[in-house]
C-alpha cells in the first residue's frame, strides 16, 4: 500500500510522517509518533478520549485521517504544559480531583481548552453541554465542571 508523506506541526514541533490511507490521526499519533497521551476509547467518535485540536478546531482524532493533516497544526495533551509549568486546566483538574483513573482526562483537558478559547467565562450549563462529547465513567463530572470553572477564573485573572 502506498504511504502518504505528511508534514504537520504538532505541539509546536515540525513533524513529518508516513501513513497508510487507512490510518486515522489517532493511529498516527499513537502508533507512528508514539504520542500515546491521546487515548482510544471507542474509535467511533462517541467517547471523546482522543480529542485534539486541528488548526484550533476540536476534533476526535479517531475520525480524522492521518493523510489529511498536511500543513495542519495539531495540539495534543502533551503540548499543554509549558515545561514544568502545568496549564491552569491541568493544575485545576488535579486540585479539584477532576480525574480518577485518568483515561478520559487528556480528551477532557483538550475539549476544555477549546471551550475556554471560545468562551473565557462559561456558565455551568455551557460547560456541561460543551463537554457532553467526552465520557468519564469515574467522576460523575461534578469535579470536572468545578475544575473548568476554576481554571476559567484563573485564566481571566479573576
Amino acid at each position, binding site marked *: 500500500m502506498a504511504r502518504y508523506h505528511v508534514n504537520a506541526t504538532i505541539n509546536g514541533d515540525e513533524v513529518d510522517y508516513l501513513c497508510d490511507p487507512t490510518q486515522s490521526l489517532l493511529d498516527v499519533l499513537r502508533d507512528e509518533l508514539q504520542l500515546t497521551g491521546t487515548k482510544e476509547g471507542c474509535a467511533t467518535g462517541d467517547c471523546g478520549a482522543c480529542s485534539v485540536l486541528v488548526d484550533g478546531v476540536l476534533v476526535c482524532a479517531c475520525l480524522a485521517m492521518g493523510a489529511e493533516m498536511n500543513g495542519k497544526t495539531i495540539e495534543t495533551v502533551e503540548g499543554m504544559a509549558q515545561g514544568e509549568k502545568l496549564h491552569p486546566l491541568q493544575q485545576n483538574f*488535579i486540585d479539584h480531583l477532576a480525574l480518577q483513573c485518568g483515561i*478520559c482526562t487528556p480528551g477532557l483537558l483538550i475539549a476544555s481548552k477549546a471551550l475556554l478559547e471560545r468562551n473565557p467565562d462559561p456558565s455551568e450549563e455551557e460547560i*456541561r453541554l460543551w*463537554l457532553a462529547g467526552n*465520557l468519564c*465513567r469515574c467522576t460523575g463530572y461534578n469535579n470536572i465542571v468545578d475544575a473548568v470553572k476554576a481554571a476559567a477564573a484563573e485564566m481571566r485573572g479573576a
Partner: protein
Amino acid sequence: MGRAPTPYGTMIKYEPKALHVIGGKPTDRPDAVDKVTGRARYAADINLPGQLIGKVLRSPHAHANLKSIDTSEALKLPGVKAIVTRDDFEDLENEFAASGELTINFKDVTRNMIAREKVLYDGHPVAAVAATSEAIAKKALKLIKVDYEVLPHVINVVEAMKPDAPVLHDHIFTIGVDPKPEKPSNIALRMTSKLGDIEEGFKQADVIIEREYNSAATHQGYIEPHASVANYTDGGTAEVWTGTQGHFVFRAQIAKLLGMDISKVKVTPCELGGGFGGKNNVYLEPLAVKLSQIARRPVKMVMTRDEVFRASGPTSGTNCKVKMGANKDGKITAAYAELNYQAGAFAGSSLNLASITVFTRYDLENVLVIGHDVVCNRPKVAAYRAPGAPMIAFGVEGVVDELAEALNIDPIEFRLRNAAKEGTQTHFGPKLGPIGYIETLEKAKASEHLKQPLGPNQGRGIATGFWFTLGMETSATININEDGTASVIYGTVDVTGGMRSAFSMIVAEELGIAPEKVRAIPSDTSVLGFNFMTAGSRGTTAGSMAVITATRKAIERMCEIAARKWEVEPDQVVFENGHARPAGSNVGDFEPLSVPQLAKEASWFGGTIAGHAEINVVNQGPGFGTHVVDVEVDRQTGAVKVLRYSIFQDAGKAVYPDFVKGQWHGGAVQGIGMALNEEYIYNANGRLDNPGFLDYRVPVASDVPNINAEIVEVPNPNHPYGVRGVGEVPIIPPVAAIANAIYDATGVRMYEQPMSPPRVLAALDAAAPKMAAE
C-alpha cells in the same frame, strides 16, 4: 460466598485517637501529574521491540456447535506469525477459585477464553491471530474458515428458565434441588436463605405489597478497552503488561490456563483506565502469551469497543419478585424475594452476593430469599460495582416505598422504624456490628435537600443501599530509605488513583513524617507475596491494614536500632511523633531520634529498615448509604431529568474525604445511567444490537446535576482508623431512588429498568385512562 472467613485472619481493633494526616487533604497526588500531561502509561500505551499485533476471531452466532476451524489459508498469509484455537490449549476440569467478588470455574474460564465444543454468545472468541500489523491480522481473521452448526438460542432470563428453553450445557443439573433433576437445564443453582417464619410474618401484616421487577444487563463502561502486551521469553517465562484489578489473580489464571508454573509468569499492572469489576477476569492475556510463545515475539492485543461490549462484562440482567408485609405500626413483618439472575454463557452470576444485600438494611424477623443462577446466550457476566445489588434494591426499595405510602408514613420515617442497627440478625448468617445506617437516614432527613420546593411534574425519591467490605490476602512492603523518606510498595491495584495518596497519608500518620516524604509504589507480581485483587471495596481498607502492619514492623526495627545505639533493651524504646524515645526517665537521658536520623544510623546498627506484611484481612465493617433524588418528568417524551442528587453514606473514617466524595459522585452517576438509559439490546438472532457508546448511552456531563455528598463516620471496629469500604454502596440506591421519584412526580410506578423515555412514556400512557377514571 464460598468458604467461611479464616480463623487465622487479621483484624486490628479500632484505636480511638486523634489523627493528624488521615481525614485531611494531601499536598501531593502521586498519580495525577502524569495523568494530566499524558505520560501515565496504560496497557495500550506499552510497545515492545519486535512486537506483533494480535486480533481475535469472534463468533457471529449466539449459540452454535463448533464443528471445525480451518486456519490453513490464514497461516499462508505473509506476515501471519501465529494462530491459536481450542486445539492449542489443554482442557480443564471443574476447579473453583475466587476472582473479585465472584467465583470462577476454570473449566468455564478456558472455554470463555476460547470456545471449545460450542460458541455460546455473539462475540465468543474462536481463534486468535498474531501478525506483523493490525491490517494483516484482520485480513487473516477473514481467511479462517469456521463451520458452525447454528442452534436455537435464549437471551432472556425468564425464557431461559422455561422447561422447553434451548439448553446451553448438558452438564448443568440445578444444584440446590433435591432430588437432583433428571434433565439438564439452564438453572445452574437454586439458593435459599431464610430467617424466622415467612408465613407467620405475612399473617401478622396489615398491608402486603407484591411486585415483579425486570432489569436489563448493563456494562461497566470503563473508557479504556482491555489491552495486554505479552512476551514469552526463550527461557520459558512469560511477562505480561495489562490493565487489571488484580495482577496476582491474573498471574494465577494465566498460569492455570496455560499449564505454566506460577513462578514463571510475571504480571505488571499498568495504569488502569477504569474497571468497576469488569477487569477482574482474563480475556486477552492467555491468548497473547500463547501467541507470543508460538511466534517467539512479543504480542500486543487491544480490544475494540465493539469487542468490549460483546465479550467482556456485563452485569446480570434480572427478574425479581418482591413481597413484603407490614403492620399498622409501620413495622415490616415479612420479607420475601425471588432473584432470577443471568449468569451469561457460564454459571456464576452475582446471585450469591446479591442475595445477602436484599433486605440487609432492615431489622427483620421473617425473611425468605430464593435465587436462581441462570445461563443464557450472553457474555459471561463479570462483577460490576456492588455486583447484583442495584437491581434487587430497585425492587425492595420500591416495595418499601409502596408500604410506607399504604400506611401513610413518610418514607424516611418508615425506614427508620425498620432500620438495621448493631445486633440486627441478618438472614444470611452474621449479626451486624456497629453500623451507620440510621445516621445516614437522619442526615438525609435533616438535609437542605429535603427543604427544596418541587414544581409541577417534579418528584422526590429516596432509597438506601448496603454493601460489605471484602478482606482477603493483602501484602505490602515498606522501605525506610537512607534519607529517612519512605517507599511503600502495595499489592492492591489503585483503580482510581486515590489509593496511592491514601497509603502515603497512612504511612505518614504512622511514622509522624510529612506525606510528601512517602512514596506509594505499585507492585508487579515479583515484588510482593500473593495479594487479592481490588474488589469488594477492599483496596484502601484491606490495603491500609497491610500498609499499617508493615509500617509498624519497620517502627519495631527503628526502636531496635535506637536501643542498640543507646545500649538499652528494645522494649525500653517507644516510637512517638516521628521519633524513637526512651520509654521512661529510668531508661536514660537520650535525645529522641527522628526517622531520618534512625535511617542514617541503620547501616551500623544492623542494616536496612524495612517492614513487611502478608496478612489475610477479615471482618471488615460494611457500608450503608441513603440517597435522595429530585427528578422532572417530561410527559410528552417520557424523558426524566435529574434535578438534584444527594448522597449520605457511612465511610467509617474517610482517609481522604474529598476523594471519597468523588468516588460517590461517580458511583451515583453510574447508577443514574443504569436507571435511565443503559441496557444491552439483542436482536432476534441473538446478536448485540448496541455494542457502542452511541447506542449504549452512558451519562454525559449535561445529563446530570452537581451531586451533594455528605459523609457519616461510624468507625469500623476492626480497622485501626475505623475505615470502611466506600466505593460500591453509591451505585446501589440510584435506580430505586429515581423510580420512587418518578412515582412522586407522576403517580406512576416503574417496574422495569432502564426507565428510558419510551418505557416511561408507555407507563404514563397505560396509567392515563386509569388515572382519568379515578
